[in-house]
């Protein structure tokens, strides 16, 4: 897709987003609307400030549209799209590991088989964090270096252990992710 066309697409997306928000989202998701009249007194409602923000967004869309014909220095390439998609996929996979490893292991290997051990029992409460968090760090390093390495895995492990030391051992009332949501 050529640069001017990309800019037009971006501007169109912004304008449609702003219009949908101004016409549908903002008035329907606030109680008092743009302007409210109480006992004859007119005052601004809760929708006014976000309405102005979306108005600003619409203005930005118009400005981008007006500048669409000017030569752009940079444009979105296939590389950018693949990079963002791969990054999102990588993060999603390791977040899923972080979220479900602990409950899965607890269900398989603990006697009670429930999630309560995740709140206060080693190693179940650390399993998801170490595998998901450490794995994410190691995967990102390996991606940058262009290949898997033991060093990356060790750095991931050490990083998560340090975070466990800082947040879990030092503070009794903090729960490591994902245990607060389990």
């Amino acid at each position: 897709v050529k640069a001017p066309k990309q800019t037009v697409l971006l501007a169109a997306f912004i304008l449609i987003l702003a219009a949908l928000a101004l016409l549908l989202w903002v008035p329907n998701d606030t109680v008092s609307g743009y302007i409210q009249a109480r006992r004859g007194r007119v005052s601004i409602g809760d929708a006014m400030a976000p309405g102005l923000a979306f108005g600003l967004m619409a203005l930005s869309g118009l400005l981008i549209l007006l500048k669409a014909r000017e030569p752009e220095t940079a444009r979105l390439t296939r590389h950018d799209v693949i990079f963002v998609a791969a990054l999102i996929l990588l993060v999603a996979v390791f977040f899923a590991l972080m979220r479900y490893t602990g409950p899965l292991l607890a269900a398989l290997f603990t006697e009670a088989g429930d999630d309560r051990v995740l709140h206060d029992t080693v190693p179940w409460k650390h399993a998801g964090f170490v595998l998901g968090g450490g794995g994410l760090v190691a995967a990102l390093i390996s991606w940058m270096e262009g290949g898997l390495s033991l060093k990356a895995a060790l750095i991931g492990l050490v990083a998560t252990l340090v975070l466990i030391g800082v947040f879990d051992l030092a503070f009794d009332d903090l729960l490591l992710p994902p245990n607060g949501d389990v």
Partner: protein
Amino acid sequence: MIETLDYIWLGILAVFDGPELFSLFGLAIPAAPVMLFLGVLAGIAVGATPGLAGPMATAISLPILISIFGFTPNALLPVFGFLIGIMKGATLGGAVPAILFNLPGTPDAMMTTLDGRPMAQAGEPRRALRIAQLSSVAGDSFSDLVLFVCAPFLAIMVEQWLDLPEKTALLILSISFVAAVMGSSPGKGIFAVSLGLIVAFIASGEDLSPRLTLGIPALRDGFPMLSAVLGILIVGEIFVAIDNERRGLSQRRDRAAQTSDHDGLRPGDLRRIRPYITQGAIIGTIVGALPGVAPPSRRRCPTRSRAGSTARRLHRVTRPLARARPRALPRPRPPIPPCPERT
């Protein structure tokens, strides 16, 4: 004026008469200066580590500090002291890898790579580091002194003279400034501003029922500040760093050349760099005082860093020094390519 000086004196007293951290030989050691010192040390380490920056360290240390000191009035000065120390130290530390390895430790040290690095390659890394430290400390201290002296009466003036219309005008100026510093695309700058405003408006209204939550229970208290800071300041930087590394845009990590025999500050240096430091400090203070101008660490492009940032000061300061030794300098590197506009 006397009243202003009284305020400053009261501030100094509050720092040194504040809560005691520990006592040494029966002498109470106040928490705020100690935390400030620790913050500067931590900040230098953070700034000297490429990829870590002051805002990241601030965001990570804030919850830890609040956990340690709590939400009490006594916690204000030690916590602020540590955070301010980190930011100051990171500015200073960012120049170290920029000069030695051509890797800016903090985004605002990007310009330091243009002149500090050639000086290091010419065998004068210590001289470049000294000048970086000197200009950093001088510029920062100047703007801080202006802040201490002017903040009390500026705050009173703002409250006395500025009513709602004027404050609205000031806000519009801030927003326009953000668009102006966006460079070639003010439209994208305003788009970013509108996104920030919308995020801030979620669940923050006057009604009993929170606005714009889309019925999602997690949004009923709005966006947590920590998540927003981590997401905007840190995750974005990491993604850009990964992409740049993969594209090979980041500079080669070659070691500094051999140190020459005459490394270190020379007698004429101070006199030579004084006008540049003065200019940079004044421009930086004025630009920094304008509302809405983000700290330089929020920008990735060297050409867009704040006019008075340490990096630019160093660039201007060291330019004549680098020129002074043209034969000793290697062929200049190609300039860092401009950051692509991301759409």
